[in-house]
C-alpha cells in the first residue's frame, strides 16, 4: 500500500523558493568546478599524448592550449582547480565535525572565494 499515489504527492518547498546563500552557492560551485575540470583534464592529457606522439602533433595541441581560447580555458581551469582544492579542504575540516556552524562555514566560504582568486593570480604570475 506504500506505493499508492506515488508521483502526484505534494512536494515540500525546494531550492527555487530560497534566497541564494553563501553556503549553498559555494557548495554547488564545488560540484560544478569538480565536474567541469574533466574538460581541463582531457585537454592536459591530450597535450601529453601529443607530446608523446610527434613534434608536429605536439605543435597542434600546444598551439590550441596557448591560443587566446586556450589561455581563457587554462585560466578558468586554474581558478576552478584552486577553488575546488580549497573547498575540498573545507570538506576535510567539516569531516571532523569542526566548523559546521553557519558563521564559521560562511567565513570559510569567503576564504575559499578570495583564496582561489589569489592563488590563481599567483599561478599566472609564477607560471
Amino acid at each position, binding site marked *: 500500500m506504500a506505493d499508492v499515489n506515488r508521483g502526484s504527492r505534494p512536494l515540500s518547498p525546494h531550492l527555487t523558493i530560497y534566497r541564494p546563500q553563501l553556503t549553498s552557492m559555494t557548495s554547488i560551485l564545488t560540484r560544478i568546478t569538480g565536474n567541469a575540470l574533466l574538460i581541463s583534464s582531457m585537454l592536459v*592529457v591530450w597535450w*601529453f599524448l601529443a607530446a608523446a606522439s610527434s613534434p608536429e602533433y605536439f605543435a597542434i595541441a600546444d598551439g590550441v592550449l596557448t591560443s587566446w581560447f586556450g589561455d581563457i580555458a587554462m585560466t578558468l581551469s586554474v581558478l576552478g582547480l584552486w577553488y575546488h582544492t580549497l573547498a575540498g579542504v573545507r570538506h576535510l575540516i567539516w569531516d571532523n565535525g569542526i566548523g559546521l556552524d553557519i558563521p564559521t562555514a560562511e567565513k570559510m566560504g569567503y576564504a575559499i572565494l578570495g583564496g582561489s582568486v589569489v592563488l590563481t593570480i599567483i599561478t599566472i604570475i609564477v607560471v
Partner: protein
Amino acid sequence: MAFLTDRKRAVGMGSAKTGTDHFWAMKVSSFGLLLLIPLFVFTFGPMLGESHEAVIAYFARPFPAIVAGLTIAVTMMHFKKGVQTLVEDYVHGTAQKVAILATISLSYAIAATGLFAIARIAL
C-alpha cells in the same frame, strides 16, 4: 506482493554492502591531491608553450614524470567517485547505471591515456 509494505520487503535483504568505502576513497584521494595538485601546477604550467624538445627533456626526468603520472591517475580515481555522486543525484533508473558505467570507463580511459603518454615520454 502488493500486500507487503516497502519496509517488510526490505527487511532481511541486507545492506548495500559498500558501507563507507566511497567516503573513505574520496578522503584518501583528496588528501593525495592536496599535495599533488600544487606540485603538478608548478611543474606542468611552465612547460606549457615550451618547445617539443624542452618538454620531452623535462618530462624524461624522474620527478616531473612521477608527479604528472600520479596526478593524472589519482585525479581520475577521484573524478570517478565524484561524478558518480553527481549522477546518482540527478539521473535515475537505467539511465543512471549507464551514466555511471560510461563515466567510470571514461575515467579509466583518460588515466590510461595519460600514463601511456608519460611513460612514452619518460622512457
